C-alpha cells in the first residue's frame, strides 16, 4: 500500500516537470491553445523535438513569441503562419499540402493502392490458373482429337 502511494506520488511529481516556462495566461482556453501550439511546432535546431520538449535557446525564444502572439489576440492559424514564414516547412510537424509535400502526404496512400492492386491481381491470377486448366483440358482434348482422326 505504501509502495502504491509512492508510485502515485512519483507520477505526480514527474508530470510537474513538463511545465518549463512560467507564462501566465488570462484564461485556460488560451493556455490550452499555447500548449497545443508548442506541441505542434518543431524546434528548428533539433531534428525531432517539439518546442514544448526542447530546452534550446531558440525554442525558448519561440515559445515566448507564441505566448506573445496569443496574448496579442492572434489565431492559431496566424501563429503557425508567423512561424512558417520564418522557418519554413521544417517548423511544422504537419507539413502543409503543396507541390513539394504531395509525395509526403499522398505517397503512402498511393503505395497502399499499388499494393492492393498487386494483391488483387495476384489473387485473380491464382483463380485464373484454375479456370485456365479447364480450358486447357478442352484444348488438349481438341488437339488430341484431330491427331486421333489421322491415325
Amino acid at each position, binding site marked *: 500500500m505504501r509502495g502504491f502511494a509512492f508510485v502515485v506520488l512519483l507520477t505526480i511529481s514527474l508530470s510537474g516537470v513538463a511545465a518549463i516556462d512560467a507564462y501566465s495566461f488570462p484564461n485556460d482556453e488560451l493556455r490550452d491553445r499555447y500548449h497545443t501550439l508548442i506541441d505542434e511546432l518543431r524546434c528548428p*535546431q533539433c*531534428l525531432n523535438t517539439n518546442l514544448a520538449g526542447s530546452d534550446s535557446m*531558440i525554442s525558448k525564444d519561440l515559445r*515566448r513569441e507564441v505566448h506573445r502572439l496569443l496574448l496579442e489576440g492572434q489565431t492559431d492559424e496566424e501563429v503557425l503562419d508567423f512561424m*512558417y514564414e520564418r*522557418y*519554413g516547412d*521544417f517548423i511544422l510537424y504537419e507539413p502543409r499540402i503543396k507541390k513539394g509535400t504531395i509525395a509526403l502526404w499522398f505517397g503512402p496512400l498511393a503505395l497502399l493502392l499499388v499494393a492492393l492492386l498487386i494483391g488483387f491481381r495476384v489473387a485473380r491470377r491464382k483463380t485464373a490458373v484454375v479456370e485456365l486448366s479447364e480450358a486447357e483440358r478442352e484444348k488438349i482434348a481438341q488437339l488430341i482429337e484431330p491427331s486421333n482422326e489421322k491415325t
Partner: protein
Amino acid sequence: MSESVPTPTPTSREAPQTSNLRRILLIPLALFFVLITILALGFRLEDPHLLPSVLIDRPFPEFSLMELEEPERTLTVQDLKGEVALVNVWATWCPNCLIEHPELTRIAKEEGVPIYGINYNDESEKARRWLERHGNPYRFNMVDNEGKLGIDLGVYGAPETFLLDRHGVIQFKHVGTVTPEVWSSTLKPLIEQLRSKS
C-alpha cells in the same frame, strides 16, 4: 500441324516452377538493395540540421535596434542598403563565431565587403569586451538581446551569415562557420555576381 497450334499457356506449370520460385525469392533481395541504395544516398544529402532559408529573395526584415558600441544610435534596415554586404549573426557564447572571426576580419579588410553584425541573444557588456579582445570586423552591430530580429530572419543558432544585395534583399544564407573554403567557393562568386549587376 501440331506445332503451329499455339500452346494455351505460355508458361507450363511443371518444370519452370522451381526457377519461378527462385525468381520470386530474389525480389525481396533486390528490394533490399534498392532500399539500401536509397538510404546510402540519403546520407550523402545535405546535413539535415541545415534548414533551407525561406527568406531568400525577400527584403531584409524591418527592425529598429540599438548599436552595440554607440547605444544612442538606432539602426534600421535602411542602414543595410547601398552595398552588397554580409550580415553575420554572432554571440560570445558561440564557439564557432570565434573560429570564423579571423576569416571575417580578413574579408572585411582585404575583400572590401562590408560586414554588419547582429549580436544575438547576448549580453552587450560581454560582447563589447569580446570585440575589444578579438578585433572588430563589423561596420556596426545590431543588439538583438531577445533574439527578435533573429526570429524574423529564421535564425536558429549562431553563427549564421546572410548575403544582401545593394537593395537589402537577402540573396543567400550560410549556416555555420564561414571558413576560407566557404568564402572562396560560395560567398566570393556570389558577391562578384551581385556586384556586376547594376
